[in-house]
């Protein structure tokens, strides 16, 4: 009788406490957790290969790899707040700035001497992740927004557009109109409101319009700025660029539609070509490469991804080892040969693997961009309160595209908010 009462109580307590006691088996090895952004499953082989090499060299460290997507910033904050921080995380320009402002990151110079960093990486890239005179990110792979222009030669032919006439962004927009009118396919899909960052700012920069003045106040609401925004708004109104760009990243929409022959141009890093090759051989064979058109200012924008180490990481030393390994010249060159990224290591420029005489679009594009690491320049620094300010900026840009505000009004509101909050 009594026994049975005890039994029930014991069984139920046992059930409730399952999992409360995490199995604490002694671990000889240090495990570090490594996060990437949108690299799986495309580059599983490459990443796993590098991890295997690293583990061979450092037998007492194991690397657990996770690939994150659109929730990376949320998850990064959450795991730190909830006490399960990762050790090495792949971020980009704006998200690194936001993480620094929230005091989440270790300055990498605490772990790696500055002289080493300067020897390995382009200083223009290192500076992207510099905040208040400290460096926070190991430069990983880079990209140039106007790297190359890939185009579907058949669509251009149908529309009677000659590629040699496309020299500037305006030429490109006009060609896009012609192509849409003649073939029904879109021309170029400009990023106008990507969820991460503030993509529209780049168009001001490319046309030589100021974003902030010398004292850091936002000034992008002149009539000239508004006219530029209006130009893009009108394009969307006429369905020369799809409304989908307000909801999804431009590169995703482009990738999706180019392979179906519904988009004529892809501008940027040639990594997009891999997907075209895999999903539509026919269009891949009609794809040609040329240099990308530039804006009035004749400048390029670009950026690089960082590997950062959170303050909350319990294995910062091992994390730094791994971050250095992942971003070293050998592995960046390997990566560039898998997908045409721009290595951020100085030594990559003279690597023999980037000399090509081939006619394959990907080969040509790889060779073109491999040495351009020294040109990477984001154009403008992230404001303080990055996340909040950029969300408001994008909301205003969207309001302009949706016709809820005039272009001028949207930019006025964005500037007002920026100057009130980016302190």
């Amino acid at each position, binding site marked *: 009788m009594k026994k049975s*009462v005890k039994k029930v109580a014991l069984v*139920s307590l046992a059930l409730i406490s399952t999992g409360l006691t995490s199995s604490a088996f002694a671990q000889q090895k240090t495990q570090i957790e490594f996060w990437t952004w949108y690299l799986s499953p495309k580059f599983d082989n490459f990443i796993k290969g590098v991890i295997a090499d690293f583990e061979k060299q450092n037998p007492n460290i194991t690397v657990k790899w996770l690939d994150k997507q659109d929730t990376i910033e949320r998850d990064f*904050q959450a795991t*730190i707040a909830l006490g399960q921080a990762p050790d090495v995380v792949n971020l980009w320009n704006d998200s690194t700035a936001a993480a620094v402002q929230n005091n989440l990151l270790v300055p990498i110079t605490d772990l790696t001497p500055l002289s080493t960093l300067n020897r390995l990486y382009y200083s223009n890239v290192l500076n992207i992740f510099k905040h208040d005179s400290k460096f926070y990110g190991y430069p990983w792979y880079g990209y140039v927004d106007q790297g190359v222009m890939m185009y579907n030669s058949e669509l251009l032919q149908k529309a009677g557009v000659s590629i040699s006439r496309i020299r500037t962004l305006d030429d490109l927009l006009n060609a896009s109109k012609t192509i849409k009118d003649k073939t029904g396919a879109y021309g170029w899909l400009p990023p106008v409101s990507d969820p991460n960052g503030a993509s529209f700012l780049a168009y001001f920069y490319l046309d030589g319009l100021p974003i902030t003045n010398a004292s850091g106040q936002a000034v992008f609401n002149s009539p000239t700025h508004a006219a530029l925004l209006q130009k893009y708004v009108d394009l969307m109104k006429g369905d020369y660029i799809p*409304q*989908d760009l*307000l909801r999804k990243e431009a590169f995703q929409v482009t990738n999706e539609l180019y392979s179906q022959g519904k988009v004529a141009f892809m501008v940027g890093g040639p990594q997009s070509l891999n997907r075209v090759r895999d999903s539509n051989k026919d269009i891949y064979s009609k794809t040609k490469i040329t240099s990308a058109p530039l804006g009035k200012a004749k400048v390029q924008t670009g950026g690089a991804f960082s590997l950062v180490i959170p303050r909350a990481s319990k294995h910062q030393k091992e994390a730094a080892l791994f971050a250095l390994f992942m971003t070293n010249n050998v592995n960046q060159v390997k990566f560039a040969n898998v997908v045409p990224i721009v290595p951020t290591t100085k030594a990559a420029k003279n690597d023999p693997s980037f000399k090509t005489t081939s006619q394959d679009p990907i080969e040509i594009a790889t060779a073109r961009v491999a040495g351009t690491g020294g040109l990477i320049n984001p154009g403008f620094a992230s404001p303080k309160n990055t996340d909040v300010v950029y969300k408001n900026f994008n909301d205003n840009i*969207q309001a302009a595209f*949706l016709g809820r505000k005039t272009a001028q009004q949207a930019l006025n509101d964005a500037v007002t908010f920026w100057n009130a909050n980016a302190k």
Partner: protein
Amino acid sequence: MNKTRTTLTAYAMLLPALVLLGVFTLYPVLYNVVLSFSKYTALELGAGKGPSWVGLENYQKVFSDPLYQTGIVNSLKYLVVVPILQIFSLLVAVLVNRSLPAIAFFRAGYYIPVITSISLAAVMWEWVYAKDGMINAALQGLGVLSKTSAFGWLINENTALWAIMFVTFWQGFGYYMVLYLAGLQSIPTELDEAARLDGATKTQVFWKITVPLMKPTLMICSLLSTLAALRVLQEIMVFTGGGPVNSTYTALFYVYSKAFKEFDYGQGAAAGMGVALIGFLLSYVNYRLTRDQQVTG
């Protein structure tokens, strides 16, 4: 002695349920009130500090935030789905409440949206609503919409919230149909038949007999549906994330964003208290309405 043992047995059997309900259901509701008056963010959590009392600060911040006001307005807009959903579900229940051949097949079919996970609904309806999607293709086929004026329903700020509501309607009607069906089947058939013999039309029978007898079920369903509409969150997460231009930013999505994007648990809790209050008021209104409602035939 024997009695004590029986009592002990009873409590031992209740123990797992009481512990779990206490820790995960009762405690959060109470602690949420405490949190709403406290400063508790990622910083405190990361530093291993507990919440500290700040009085009404969170409430002041949240209630003066235009985004929260937008959220409340959108959540209230969402209530429009309730009467439409309830009336439609009741009518469908009446329709399938007969013994026709293959009626079970139709009932089962109507229930399929109910057992569809919200994440799958998101995948499917995103294509339906796309600019080149099924709805626009159908509208163009009917000549209602021209090719040039087509737009994505989830991207247009005037339609996004309604589009998500329509998915709620699609997922809900089978569920409420079953509840109403149970209610209808408990109505004695003699009542209908007597009325029909007295020369009442079908419509009259529906209003004079069915609706009054279904009132308890109607009340429960409307209440469930109202609270679900007010607390809409998952749908927003999987469809739009609050966009375009915050047109689908609901009150509970604000709570979620505060707590799990900005990691300000105090403000999240305060925002949640606002929603709880509205839920309480709506429950009361619903109760009064269904109690006082005069059926006109």
